[in-house]
């Protein structure tokens, strides 16, 4: 009975440790400079003939 109780406690501690390890923190820091800008039509102009849906 005591062994079973110890096993249950060990399991609970292991699961708790796993949850903490998996969920803590973040994956890095945001970029401090720069930003997104939409691509201009000039930058998307065809370089070799017609586009995919041109008639």
């Amino acid at each position, binding site marked *: 009975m005591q062994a079973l109780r110890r096993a249950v406690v060990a399991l609970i501690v292991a699961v708790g440790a796993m949850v903490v390890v*998996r969920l803590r923190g973040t994956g*890095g820091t945001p970029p401090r400079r720069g930003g*997104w800008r939409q*691509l201009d*039509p000039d930058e998307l*102009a065809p370089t*070799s003939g017609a*586009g995919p849906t041109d008639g």
Partner: protein
Amino acid sequence: MTLRAAVVGLGAVGTRAARQLAAAGAAVTLVHPSAPRLAFVRHEVGAPTDAVVGGIDDLPDGLDVVVLCHPGDHRGAAERAVEREVAVVSVADDPAVVRRLLDVHDEAAARGVTVVVGAAMAPGLGCLLARWAADRLAAVTEVHVASVGTGGPACARRHHRALTEPALDHIDGAWVQRPGSSGRELVWFPEPLGGADCYRGGLADPLVLVPAFPGVRRVTARVAATRRDRLTSWLPMLRPPHPEGLVGGVRVEVRGFRPPARPGGPPVADAVVVGASAPPAIAAGAVAATAAIAAGSHRLPAGAAGLAVLADDPGPWLADLGRRGVPAWLFEGADARRLGT
């Protein structure tokens, strides 16, 4: 001549693809096992369409292209279409399905038919962005893709499974398995998304990107997940997925070298970061429709491959997608060599 297209599977992505094809003037046949769903989508598309209650075995004759948007395996459906010399566009993003579709290449090439593999958001839009970014560099050494968001319920279930499946990274010419849900990285997506923690998982992007960049050293893919996603990924989905996800996005970082600043000088290490944000079902439907028009009009090379291989001039593809509500973005103003890992 009017393009004749069939859309098989009318979930969130199939409905959007059908609507985009009909708006482009294609003669669209909707194929789905449920008559009520067919009636609903015919009304949603808002243009005259034919409807077939059934599946891939019930396609009409005389098609130019079939768009596969149903859940599950697409290999059998693609093989039957190739036998009939009908071009195929698949939106599958399951690595096992994508690998099986790529195996159709020899048969498709022999018959002069195009099979577009992974024509969704990631892979799909991510492939076009990677090709565009790579064309800005003289040599490509690394491609890293990250995506966030899900389309319909089938896409949400795939996302749930992907976090428990091993990731396939391409490192120095070899495929390396990494544990799913590992490798946390904060990825900055175009607005309105901002930052999201992304993880490795069973994602198909490297399978379709590696053939497009011979000699590339590293190709990886990550997907955004919340803490709850990670904690519950090993369980069955605790509640049914939403009919459709909210805004999502894809970010592609291509690293390599620019030509030397002066003749005989060393090449300059650089990176190009591009992305897009849109509801994933809309983005996937737009990519599938554009790919269907190109493949059905015989503007793509024969064989089975992803869009990074098939679209040799990605600029007009991205411009077309921008007109369909999925604009492309470029990250600039920072030292791109210091972005991410």
